[in-house]
């Protein structure tokens, strides 16, 4: 199947971004839990090509940081101790894609730590935490999307195909779920589940809650497709041969839902990632010490952190390229599925 150029472009971009996150262990120089109590809230490492004496090096390097005399959070560079940045270094062990044990990292600085995005209160490298946190946030969002779409497909297909009371009840239920503002609904469901859970449990909890809450809109869309497909003459013809409901669903109706589901996936995925980020930010999602884009931003709620350590805001920007990518994908998908439609991404689809 030949895909249009712009669709392929967006898919490539998204796959590349996800690949980087998936291989977080390789791209991140340090283990996300590795603390460095001697360098809390250190600013992003300055990468130099020219040293104090004025000579230029071909290889970039960083200076070791030390606290300024009489300060607790201001650092100065020790111009006598420089460490060149090396590539493909051996470092902390990790599992690539969760399976393959590895210890090569893309880059690192032998003698000292190179913190591209600074460090947090425990001296943990924010860049590494950003990449590893991305794994959790993105995966949670994607799992939630899969859950919501599966649920939506089942409910929508059942309601559309069987009609009558089943349809009426299921659609009223969907209406109830849509009657609440989505974040309040999320809160309502999260509120009554246990608060203190392990990071792994929290991951499944968040993915489950977000997915469970988001089935209503896909269900309505699938129902619409099923309803119109049901009335088509080729379905009638199949019934004329004595086809059972299941055969008709499988052969004729469900393939029609594929394009709707794909587009919904592209629209919902970033929304669900954002939901996880919001929950974790507020302390209702993935807890420390596991990194997530949400809890990386959490300590910004402290005034001192917000005002003094600007680099702690950077994880907020991590979401943006992904949102852009998914938005582009969704638009391209919609245009591919229905070229006559001028406006991509329907009302209320995003929030």
């Amino acid at each position, binding site marked *: 199947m030949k895909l249009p150029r712009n669709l392929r472009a967006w898919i490539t971009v998204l796959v590349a971004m996800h690949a980087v996150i998936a291989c977080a262990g390789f791209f991140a120089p340090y283990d996300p839990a590795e603390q460095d109590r001697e360098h809390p809230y250190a600013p992003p490492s300055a990468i130099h090509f020219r040293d104090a004496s004025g000579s230029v090096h071909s290889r970039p390097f960083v200076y070791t940081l030390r606290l300024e005399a009489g300060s607790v959070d201001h650092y100065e560079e020790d111009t006598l101790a420089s460490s060149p940045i090396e590539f493909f270094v051996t470092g902390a062990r990790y599992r690539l894609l969760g399976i393959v044990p590895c210890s090569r990292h893309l880059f690192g600085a032998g003698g000292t730590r190179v913190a591209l995005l600074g460090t947090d209160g425990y001296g943990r490298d924010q860049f590494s935490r950003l990449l590893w946190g991305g794994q959790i946030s993105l995966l949670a969002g994607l799992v939630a999307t899969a859950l919501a779409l599966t649920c939506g497909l089942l409910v929508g297909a059942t309601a559309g195909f069987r009609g009558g009371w089943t349809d009426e009840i299921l659609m009223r239920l969907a209406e109830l779920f849509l009657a609440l503002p989505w974040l*309040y609904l999320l809160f309502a469901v999260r509120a*009554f589940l246990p608060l203190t859970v392990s990071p792994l449990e929290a991951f499944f909890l968040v993915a489950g809650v977000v997915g469970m809450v988001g089935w209503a809109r896909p269900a309505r869309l699938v129902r619409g497709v099923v309803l119109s497909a049901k009335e088509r003459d080729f379905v009638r013809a199949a019934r004329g041969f004595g086809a059972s409901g299941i055969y008709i669903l499988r052969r004729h109706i469900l393939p029609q839902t594929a394009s709707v589901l794909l587009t919904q996936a592209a629209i919902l995925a970033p929304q669900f990632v954002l939901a996880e980020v*919001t929950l974790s930010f507020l302390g209702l999602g993935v807890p420390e010490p596991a990194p997530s884009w949400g809890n990386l931003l959490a300590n910004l709620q402290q005034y001192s952190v*917000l005002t003094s350590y600007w680099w702690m805001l950077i994880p*907020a920007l991590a979401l*943006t390229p992904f949102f852009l990518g998914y938005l582009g994908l969704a638009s391209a998908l919609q245009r591919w599925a229905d070229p006559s439609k001028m*406006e991509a991404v329907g009302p209320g689809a995003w929030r």
Partner: protein
Amino acid sequence: MTRYVLRRAVHAAFLLLGVSLLTFLFSALAPGRYFDEMKMNPQIAPETIAALRAQYGVDQPLPMRYARWLDGLVRGDLGFSFAYNAPVGPMLRVRAANTLLLTTIAMLFAWGFALPLGIWSAEREGRWPDHLVTAATAALFIVPDLVLALGLLLFAVHSGWFPAGGMAAVGAESLSWTARGRDYVLHLALPVAALVLGTCPMLVRHVRAAILDVLDSGFIRAARGHGISRRRLLFCYALRAATNPLLSLFGLSLGTLLSGSLIIEVVMSWPGLGPFLLEAILARDLYVVIGGVLLSTVFLVGGNLAADLLLYWADPRIRAERV
């Protein structure tokens, strides 16, 4: 007319009832554990817990508990807050009023910007102003509310022009009327800005789409053929015809705005439903959570009902449908 109003009102009432049942059912997911976690809270005496368990009939079957709660609701009793040791109603009322203030003002501004911008953009479709607006809205669209709020907060801190959160300065009651008013406005500015920036992109896009749709239709082209001026065409004809989708959009935008207000209130310390609800969840304050969620639904359903009624008044086709 009254039949239609009655129908929509009954529908809204059923929705609210359904949502209350749904939230109550959620709370049933972990009833015992709820009170167990409360036991771990040193602020709440064990006798209180026991009394509350009895009063709220936690050991009774779910339908009974729901009936009891519903009965209380009808009498205006929204339950009891374990964390504050006070009835939920009055506290929620204050918070809800603050949220309502914020969302109403934000709604006015958001539509105030989005409507002209959308129309202007639609009118100049394909030309550079349209492209500019589309690019700007796309750029803003991508930024989540959370990030917007944090960014604005940072801006407030660094510029010093706006207070960094809260609803009023300390000791505001002692200020003169004008000073107090100015204080309020300053405190409102950033949260409203965050909300407006968050909802405007979607609104502009949809207003533009709705107007474009209408401008494309046959009767507009016929009117142009009659030589009616562009301005008159746009405002007297096109806008009127776009009322239907625009009013539906209003309902939709209300939902977005309410959800957005939740997170913005938390980040910017605006004393609305948001932070209150969050606190309640962390403190396992069951009835505050249920009450807060229900109240937000009341706003949303109420807003949609208002939009429906406005639609009925504005769109003769609906009146003719004899629904």
